[in-house]
């Protein structure tokens, strides 16, 4: 029969039987497509009957008969009739919704992937598997595959993840389980015990603890009865108590045992509360080669029946006991099974939704988070969600109303200290993690209460240079400093820089900041970062949200910060997961406020070679660049036939007295007016002024004149009287004398070079005026 297309809602066409036609366009399309398929199928599929929808919003039902002779039957498979009758229900919303297919009988009741005895479970993930453009062609192909696999008992191959059985839930209470189920001892047909229920909220309990057969149950806590079977339940769980009783009996749980369990647990339930019964059966598998795990389901016994059970045991009045028995019997024979929804998050049967992501590095890690402000409060949340095992939050400022615009605090938390407020938030996300907080001013250094070697990562989200310096001074005392992530964002939240310093890196938090600056300054692709973080003109005070009385901060929204926080979090996670050669890496992230485009750029920060200065014990960080330039000049000096002549040049960098670090970034060869001889290198000055200016500009004033270097081709790297004289000249006899100056001597340069650095301070030289005729010796 041919159905008419629906013209419009008001003038409804009538079909041949004179009834109003509720067939939608979609249903008509389905029928047309199926007729095409049937016509081309050479009798494999016949349309037996078409029932138009009897009313608005109802399905069109097409009965088909399918030739099954092509399906090979294997043991345990579906044994079809030669022509199998099927009913296809086409929803009025076809093809957006796929049709449902039913067997015309209930012979396959209880088989996997057949629900309610006749419904074929064709699609596991409809959104992915159903393609509306394929329509009935796709459906018939899918049906054909399903029937073929079912005939060969291949719907659940041995090594595939198992489809869980179904319970038709009716209770409004849910149970969540996040701990693996107990094992059943060998030789036993079930495990009997208790599941401690902790109330998560009004709608949900947690199964928080399993324990063996109880001796006594405290009444102020709630416990569920638990029976875990060692054999499978039917694919569709019993929908009545009586069927459940027989199903359990068939699996080795006699009724009297079940009844005793129920009585014991009924006794320990608080008044007027229902009893939960957790039933497990080995019907779950996550992936190939994994053993079968328990599928957990739960049913609820209403408070009324619980009370009746209590009555049977406790009532002394015969009439009351009888009444109780009546209720119980009525329950056992007539009640429906009230299955509860179980949110199963056990590791043994589920996969974490962040598995394989960068964040998975943090699972089980111990993290110290310094600074719980904009970046810190966001990063803290990511840590808690990623499953960090231990989190210590350090801060000393308080939540105020203004920061709710962008920091992860709640209105009620205004006035709390940030670290304590954040710890409350994080515990609410992951109560299993060990989360604590520490009130500490980090500009005073690493908090004494925390042992730094206990952590896998330290995240410094304070964006404070003073904190960096304090930490660097403090951390030199420790040998086992874990990796450290530091992050900061620019004044308008359009750029962010994170650095990751690994154990064994020569840098500390503060000089890594300097190294990052030099890297940004020297990379033409990063000049916008240099300008944003190290502006030439530092006099601007920055944004003050409460003018006159607040610390300058940046302008940015919660969404801006979330982007940077997640970028930095993933940068660290990725670097820590993959290892890699770089001991220190900077991550430059920018987002355009014009079009929202984002980009990030990783720069490995070259490790300097480390020397110790001879007089004051300063650490010397000699850059690869400076070292190459000196090596190259020594080689060039030898090549030009004067290896026995001293050579040298000038050193540019920075001397940090606070940290006791001399950073040498650049070394040059001899200026053209230098004088070289085997006894003496007299460093010239031609062009040095322009050179110093060039580097100072290039580096944002971080790379300045710090001293000179020269070789001693055949002697030790000890300053001679001539060298000391040269130092005195630089420190005292110039127009603009520096406070201190570094002298590097490369001893035995011609054979086996030995590098030694000497720092001379101006006050270490005394100017003595000699009277006429006096000599220095006197």
């Amino acid at each position, binding site marked *: 029969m041919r159905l008419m297309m629906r013209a419009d809602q008001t003038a409804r066409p009538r079909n041949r039987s004179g009834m109003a036609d509720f067939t939608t366009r979609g249903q008509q399309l389905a029928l047309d497509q199926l007729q095409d398929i049937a016509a081309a199928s050479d009798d494999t599929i016949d349309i037996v009957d078409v029932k138009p929808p009897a009313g608005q919003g109802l399905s069109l039902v097409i009965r088909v008969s399918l030739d099954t002779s092509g399906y090979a039957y294997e043991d345990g498979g579906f044994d079809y009739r030669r022509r199998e009758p099927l009913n296809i229900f086409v929803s009025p919303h076809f093809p957006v919704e796929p049709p449902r297919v039913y067997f015309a009988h209930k012979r396959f009741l209880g088989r996997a992937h057949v629900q309610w005895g006749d419904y074929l479970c064709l699609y596991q993930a409809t959104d992915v598997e159903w393609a509306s453009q394929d329509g009935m062609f796709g459906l018939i192909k899918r049906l054909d595959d399903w029937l073929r696999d079912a005939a060969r008992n291949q719907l659940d191959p041995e090594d595939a993840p198992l489809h869980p059985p179904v319970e038709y839930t009716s209770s409004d209470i849910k149970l969540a389980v996040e701990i693996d189920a107990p094992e059943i001892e060998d030789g036993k047909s079930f495990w009997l015990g208790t599941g401690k229920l902790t109330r998560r909220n009004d709608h949900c309990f947690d199964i928080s603890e399993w324990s063996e057969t109880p001796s006594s149950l405290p009444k102020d806590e709630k416990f569920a009865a638990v029976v875990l079977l060692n054999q499978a339940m039917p694919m569709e769980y019993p929908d009545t108590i009586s069927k459940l009783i027989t199903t359990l009996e068939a699996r080795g749980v006699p009724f009297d045992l079940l009844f005793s369990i129920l009585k014991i647990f009924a006794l320990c339930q608080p008044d007027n509360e229902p009893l939960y019964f957790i039933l497990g059966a080995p019907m779950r598998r996550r992936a190939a080669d994994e053993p079968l795990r328990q599928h957990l389901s739960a049913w609820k016994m209403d408070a009324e029946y619980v009370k009746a059970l209590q009555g049977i045991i406790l009532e002394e009045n015969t009439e009351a006991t009888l009444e109780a028995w009546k209720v119980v019997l009525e329950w056992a024979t007539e009640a429906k099974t009230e299955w509860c929804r179980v949110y199963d998050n056990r590791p043994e049967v589920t996969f974490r939704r962040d598995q394989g992501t960068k964040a998975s590095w943090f699972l089980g890690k111990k993290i110290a988070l310094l600074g719980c402000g904009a970046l810190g409060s966001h990063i803290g949340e990511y840590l808690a969600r990623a499953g960090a095992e231990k989190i210590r939050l350090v801060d000393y400022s308080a939540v105020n109303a203004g920061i709710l615009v962008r920091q992860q605090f709640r209105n009620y938390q205004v006035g709390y200290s940030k670290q304590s407020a954040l710890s409350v938030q994080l515990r609410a996300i992951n109560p299993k993690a060990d989360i604590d907080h520490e009130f500490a001013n980090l500009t005073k250094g690493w908090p004494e209460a925390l042992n730094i070697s206990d952590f896998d990562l330290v995240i410094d989200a304070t964006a404070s240079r003073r904190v960096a310096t304090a930490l660097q001074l403090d951390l030199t005392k420790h040998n086992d400093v874990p990796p450290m992530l530091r992050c900061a964002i620019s004044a308008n939240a359009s750029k962010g820089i994170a650095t990751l310093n690994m154990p064994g890196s020569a840098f500390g938090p503060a000089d890594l900041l300097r190294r990052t600056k030099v890297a940004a300054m020297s990379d033409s692709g990063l000049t916008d970062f240099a300008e944003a973080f190290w502006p030439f003109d530092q006099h601007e005070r920055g944004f003050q949200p409460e003018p006159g009385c607040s610390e300058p901060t940046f302008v940015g929204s919660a969404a801006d910060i979330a982007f940077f926080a997640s970028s930095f979090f993933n940068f660290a996670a990725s670097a820590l997961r993959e290892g890699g050669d770089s001991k220190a890496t900077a991550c430059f992230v920018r987002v355009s406020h014009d079009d929202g485009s984002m980009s990030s750029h990783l720069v490995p920060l070259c490790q300097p070679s480390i020397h110790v200065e001879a007089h004051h014990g300063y650490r010397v960080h000699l850059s*690869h660049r400076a070292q*190459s330039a000196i090596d190259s000049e020594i080689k*060039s000096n030898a*090549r030009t036939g004067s290896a026995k002549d001293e050579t040298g040049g000038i050193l540019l960098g920075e001397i940090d007295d606070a940290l006791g670090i001399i950073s040498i970034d650049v070394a040059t060869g001899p*200026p*053209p007016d230098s004088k070289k001889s085997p006894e003496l290198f007299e460093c010239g000055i*031609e062009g040095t002024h*322009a*050179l110093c200016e*060039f580097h100072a500009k290039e580096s944002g004033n971080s790379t300045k004149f710090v001293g000179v270097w020269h070789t001693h081709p055949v002697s030790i790297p000890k300053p001679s009287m001539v060298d000391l004289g040269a130092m005195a000249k630089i420190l005292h006899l110039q127009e603009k004398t520096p406070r201190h100056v570094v002298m590097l001597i490369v001893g035995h340069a011609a054979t086996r070079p030995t590098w030694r650095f000497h720092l001379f301070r101006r006050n270490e030289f005394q100017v003595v005026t000699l009277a006429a005729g006096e000599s220095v010796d006197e």
Partner: protein
Amino acid sequence: MSSKSFKFGLALSGGGSRAAAFHLGCMRALNDRGILDQVLTLSTVSGGSVIGALWAYSDDSFEEFDQRMQNILRKGLKKGIIRYTLFSGEAPKIVGTIFTSGVLAALCSSARLLISALGLVGIKHASLDSLKLRLQAPLPRFASRTTAFARFLDDEYFKGTLLKGVKRQNLKIIINASELRTQSAFRYGSMESGCWRFGTLTEDTLVAKAVAASASFPAILPALDEQQRYIKRGETATHRTIVSDGGVYDNLGTSCLIPKRDSSFSTNVTETDFIIACVAGQGIPDGSSLPYFWPSRMIETINTIHRRTHSITFDLLHRLKESGEIKGFLLPYLGQNDAALPCPPPDLVARDKTFDYPTNFDPMCQEDLELIAKRGEQLTKNLIETYHPDL
């Protein structure tokens, strides 16, 4: 980033002795910095081929090489070419070539001129046109000043060394020439030699011949004209091959270092991610030349085309760096505009002291040699310091 992680390709441009002296200076700076020994591919053109091949096919210290190169440049190659043309075993062959191949070629050429003249006076016929097409030089030029040049180089410097016999460790060399019949790059190399149209040569070639071909400046030296046997996609065939100066196709020698070349359309495909292109070009002209008659017009036309390919190549290097296809490049350029250097050495040999040195193989005076080489060294060192200090 350590320089060890780069795959260096060094290109030495053409430009006669001027180029060789400039490259010597560049190589000094690269050697001082420890980069020269890390170069994996050396690509040379014309004058650059002379110094490049002398480096690749010797194993003396850099200092010895430096001295040897200076001696060669002071002496010049011109006398050697003349001597071998007139007084070596090559001389009778050249005479023989003139009287056989040369006479035939001249006859054919005259006949073609005649047909063209007939065409001008209105006598045209299809058969005449096809005859004209067939009237090409029928025999190769067996011997010429260029073969004399090759023989001189072989006797004096390369002593029968074949291209595969590179003596520097891990170094591959590509000696660039141009094939005039197919107007394609002809690359002699230690891996393979040939051009993409014909395929690769079945037999190895003398280094001296490759260098002479690469440096046979077409205005002065004839092309190498030979029947050569090639293999292409498994099939061998013989092709008459006319090879001239590498500068005709690519005077910088960078074309074979560009990443992502396809070996089905190119020979000597290498892996390079850091290009060092030493270029001995003159730089921006000052506008003093006023071409008027045909010869000067033609010369300036060629110069303009050259300049255009230079600037396109410079631009390409920048783009490759920006796109990440190469990790970096250095471009020491004799004609560098000194004012554009951000931090030049105070004693830099100025451009105008060197750039107009001619591009021939005449003997060089010590002062010119020193100035040009020093400029090469200073520029290379300065570029490393300024743009790639971590090398």
